[in-house]
């Protein structure tokens, strides 16, 4: 305890002694900071969406021109959904096949000393994971991959998946604002996304990380000689900062170290923590702000921001309060208990851990700076629920696609309720758009619940679980939600590197990414022949409070309705168990 006396010390004491209050303030500061940075980048993103010149165009133009020249891409060739989505799929498939074979051949035929080869199912899982911007790692990075492999496979796919996501959102926006029936040229969009947004921002982030003290080197181990021991400990180091840069900017997740940002070399202090949170929210947040500007409806942008922020706060504070309250079991035992610190970095505390965890699942980053497995049932619920809603803030680009499917669904209900035909910016919403938005909304829960139901019935698979039973349901739900939402956050708790999980998750990730993206681009295609006019609001005001209210509750309701039974028997039951101090009834 810091002794009081002077007025400065009074406030210091106040913040130290009122941890609930100071934690809340810290979370709010984080939210304000990420909003500010999102707001700053929004103008740049808007220009990219509208195809205007940005400050980087001078440089990127030349690079794009050069690449397009040698690869024979004609940027003026604009495609409809079919052409665009086919290019997207083909490009991703080629990259996937190439990296898959590269990974298999490298690790199995040219292994480094001590390196274990990738099995086929693990390779499939890894490639699908990084290709879909999920970045679930069913392996531990530094031990399994050489830097050469890491750079080509992991970092390469991280750029590729982020670029693909942003290109899809460019096509989506184009479908809305243009009326020529075309979505654009995927390769060109992809290159623009890389050179004007993702690459510059990740370079910037990498430089900042270097200054903070995150290592970037080609040597493989840092050898330390602890004074109490004669042995030498080798800590793996390598190109951590550069991986960290694209990992966060590209909302990829994963990490150099198995422990992710919980490891001091990935996240040394509170400054790096806040920089990381900002860097993985900057593009999704900026895209939301850009949305209002691109569609010339600031109100709509504000409404979406408001809804997303409400969900973000719900998630962050649920996690924070859950973790702060900790396990009643412990307090009931009469222990001095200051919240659940298990698996958390003490330097960051509960609040900065909570905001990091919830930000990582609000976006599709899925990075973590703590051991999620050690979270309380209430805490994990706060981290889990954004993934059940398919990451409301979304990944690079995909956030916009996801929010639009919810908006279309809501607008249909709302318009009928006020006796209007559904439309968005005077784009008529026909049964076609409702169809694809419903498809993409139901695909997500189905991708989670069906594998969950099947896996639970196979005792052989459940045998590797160590936690008590309701927690196993939570862990499994978390795993599949993360895969379906292309998030990559992992709670662990069981042996994931099994052929069954590797292949099943790969399937979930690929479907959750490309099928859903296909449905969403179909919506864009059917909008592509219509031109929006936002100047005159003849229908429901989509920027209004009540619309936002309805959107918020539709999202919550769809999530709640779809997952309530699973949540009841997973985290809620575990929560109930903690309160009742009754352990073992269900075992």
């Amino acid at each position, binding site marked *: 305890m810091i002794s009081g006396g002077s007025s400065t010390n009074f406030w210091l004491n106040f913040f130290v002694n009122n941890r609930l209050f100071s934690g809340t303030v810290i979370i709010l500061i984080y939210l304000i900071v990420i909003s500010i940075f999102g707001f700053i980048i929004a103008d740049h993103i808007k220009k990219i969406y509208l195809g205007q010149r940005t400050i980087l165009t001078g440089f990127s133009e030349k690079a794009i021109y050069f690449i397009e020249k040698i690869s024979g891409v004609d940027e003026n060739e604009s495609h409809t959904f079919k052409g665009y989505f086919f290019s997207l799929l083909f490009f991703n498939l080629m990259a996937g096949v190439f990296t898959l074979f590269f990974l298999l051949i490298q690790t199995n035929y040219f292994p480094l000393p001590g390196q274990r080869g990738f099995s086929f199912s693990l390779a499939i899982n890894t490639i699908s994971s990084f290709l879909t911007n999920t970045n679930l790692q069913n392996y531990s990075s530094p031990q399994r991959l050489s830097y050469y492999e890491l750079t080509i496979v992991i970092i390469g796919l991280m750029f590729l998946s982020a670029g693909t996501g942003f290109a899809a959102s460019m096509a989506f926006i184009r479908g809305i604002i243009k009326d020529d029936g075309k979505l654009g040229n995927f390769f060109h969009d992809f290159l623009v996304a890389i050179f004007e947004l993702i690459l510059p921002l990740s370079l910037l982030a990498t430089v900042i990380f270097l200054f903070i003290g995150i290592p970037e080197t080609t040597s493989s181990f840092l050898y330390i000689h602890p004074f109490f021991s004669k042995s030498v400990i080798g800590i793996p180091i390598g190109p951590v900062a550069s991986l960290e840069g694209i990992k966060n900017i590209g909302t990829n997740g994963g990490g150099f170290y198995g422990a992710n940002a919980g490891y001091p070399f990935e996240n040394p202090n509170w400054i790096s923590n806040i920089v990381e949170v900002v860097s993985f929210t900057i593009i999704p947040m900026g895209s939301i702000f850009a949305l209002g500007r691109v569609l010339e409806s600031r109100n709509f942008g504000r409404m979406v921001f408001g809804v997303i922020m409400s969900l973000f706060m719900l998630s962050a504070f649920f996690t924070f309060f859950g973790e702060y309250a900790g396990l009643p079991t412990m307090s009931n035992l009469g222990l001095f208990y200051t919240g659940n610190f298990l698996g958390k970095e003490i330097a960051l505390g509960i609040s900065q851990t909570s905001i990091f965890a919830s930000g990582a699942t609000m976006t599709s980053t899925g990075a973590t700076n703590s051991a999620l497995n050690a979270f309380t049932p209430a805490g994990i619920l706060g981290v889990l629920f954004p993934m059940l809603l398919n990451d409301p803030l979304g990944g690079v680009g995909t956030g916009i696609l996801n929010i639009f499917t919810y908006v279309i669904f809501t607008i*249909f209900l709302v318009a009928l309720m006020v006796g209007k035909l*559904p439309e968005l910016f005077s784009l008529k919403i026909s*049964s076609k758009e409702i169809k694809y938005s419903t498809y993409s909304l139901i695909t997500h829960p189905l991708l989670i619940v069906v594998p969950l139901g099947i896996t639970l019935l196979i005792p052989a698979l459940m045998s590797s679980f160590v936690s008590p039973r309701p927690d196993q349901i939570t862990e499994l739900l978390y795993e599949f939600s993360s895969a379906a939402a292309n998030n990559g956050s992992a709670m662990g708790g069981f042996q994931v590197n099994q052929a069954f999980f590797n292949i099943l998750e790969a399937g979930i990730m690929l479907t959750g990414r490309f099928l859903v993206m296909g449905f969403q681009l179909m919506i864009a295609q059917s909008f592509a022949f219509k031109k929006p006019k936002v100047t005159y609001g003849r229908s429901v005001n989509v920027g209004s409070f009540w619309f936002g209210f309805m959107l918020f509750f539709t999202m919550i309701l769809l999530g709640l309705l779809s997952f309530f*039974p699973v949540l009841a028997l997973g985290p809620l039951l575990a929560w109930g168990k903690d309160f009742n101090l009754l352990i073992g009834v269900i075992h």
Partner: protein
Amino acid sequence: MKINIEPVIIALKNFRPDRLIRNPVMFVTEIALIMSIYLLIFSGQYGLPVSPRYIYFYTAVIILLFLTVFFSNIAESLSEGKSKAITDSLKKIRQKTIAHVIEGSTIRDVPSEELRTGMIVLVNKNEFVPNDGEIIEGSGYFNESSITGESKPMMKVVGDSVTGSTVLTTDSVKIRITADPGETFLDKMIALVGNSVREKTPNEIALNVMLSGLTLIFLIITASIFSLADFLGINLNLFILIVLLICLIPTTIGALLPALGIAAINKVSQFNIIAKSGRAVENAGDIDTIILDKTGTITIGDRQAINFYPVPGIDRSEFLRYCYLSSAEDVTKEGISIVKLCESSGLDTEKFGGLSGEFIPFTSDTKYSGVKIDDVVILKGAMKSISEKIGRNDSFIEGISAEISSKGGTAMTLCKNDQFLGVIELNDVIKPWIRERIETMKNMNIKTIMCTGDNEITAQYIARESGIEEFVANVKPEDKFREVEKEKDKQRMVAMVGDGTNDAPALARADVGLAMNSGTQAAKDAANMIDLDNDPAKLMDVIFLGKQILITRGSLTTFSLANDVAKYFVIIPAMFYLIPQLGFVNIMGFTDPLLAITSALIFNTFIIPALIPMALKGVKFKASGADELLKRNIILYGAGGIIFPFICIGIIYFLLAGVGVTW
């Protein structure tokens, strides 16, 4: 009271799975019903508890599932019954007669059903018009009461369209047939009202997709509970799973959706309007701008003489005399009203009995009419045309005319040879209730544009009096199309009324075009709705109706989805009552799980018949802007939809427990 059991029989017949599959929600319910009957019979084999209390429970579930499907079917058959009654009465109107077909110089009698488009038919006095057609020779009064309900015969002249099965009460006319058998106006109407041609609107299709998607999710989720429970070592009763499924899938809106669609068409028919598609009615709800004619819609339509203003120096009784002379043989409504006013002003008309001159009829070129008695020419008409004719101006006449115009009246100037006599004030009366209607439209953010051939000042006066903000004066019929275009360019949905051939392009361009039945065939073809009563102001009723249909559908969907929250919080704790740690989810504090589950299912079943009247009548709503309505309906059907079932299920539970049901 005679109880009509026909809907019940139809409802029972519609249990056939091949019919029910059109409605996925109800289809799933029926499958669940069949499954539960099967489970009851073979309950032993599936390890289900068979103590009496469980058998009661199973029976209750089966009965309630049966009722759910039955109520849905009865809602549909009730509204179908209504539309059938309408078509039956229409079929009775359809008359089979003998038509006199003119072929060159001969007349051949053929049965009316053999008439083809283009045939020329002679219709004599007191004969039925054999088929739809257009008058090409002659004129006469037609009694259309069988279709419009209007008992006063209508005068029709060359170019007017006539409808089959109406009666010619005077003279005889030649008509050219414009419809083949089976495509006549009445046939179309019967086909439309009967659901044989009823196609789903895009909105209904979209809603169906959404509900099917939700049903699929809930199916999978319910199935997943089975494996969750199995994993936790809980022996789940399949009946409870079935109940959960039925409570979760949107049965309320799913059950009422078919009835809602038919009810919409029925309501339109009750207004004596024929909508060519359900889509047109929904479009009507979405209208932003309505373009109305002044004459006949906002005003009663007949300009009546209401005052005389002789120029100074002319004796009033003398002026009245000239007025009378000018109009004695004028059969226009204005002319008749002038004669009437002269009579009521005390002019002794007897002494003009023998006086007769040569009547000069009104033409659109001259814009005046009058009479020529010997070498005296008395003319009446618009001031401008009279001034041009006699080449003079008069400050008194101009002053009076301007004053009359500013009140929305028409000043009719009277002159004798080249001398001004005075002004007759004609005025058209604003319909008494129109102001209120326009106000309602304004509250719903709908802009009304008045179109009139009158001058600016008159238009302004009428617009102000009736509360209209925007008007277009000096309109020629073709200008209406431009007006529609102008609004469409602003991305607004436009509705308009028309009856002339000139109106046809505008009617076709507008999102909702309402043609008068008395209008030309071209107008009726271009429009997507036809009003049988020829009341243009009905457009506003149609808009209200269209809105109501959409609101009913949207509100019931929201209500139905919101209901699921309560059902979850009742059934999930009851389902897992063996796990005390989950007790905190049991926010209702029910202690008897079977009773709680039954209560939820009872609510789920009986909310359907409770909402049938609302579905058929449409929800009530206050005319207001979209945002205001949204707020109100979110609170009413969204928040209400969450809270209401909690209360109802609670009441049902305690009532059941109170009467001694203990399962």
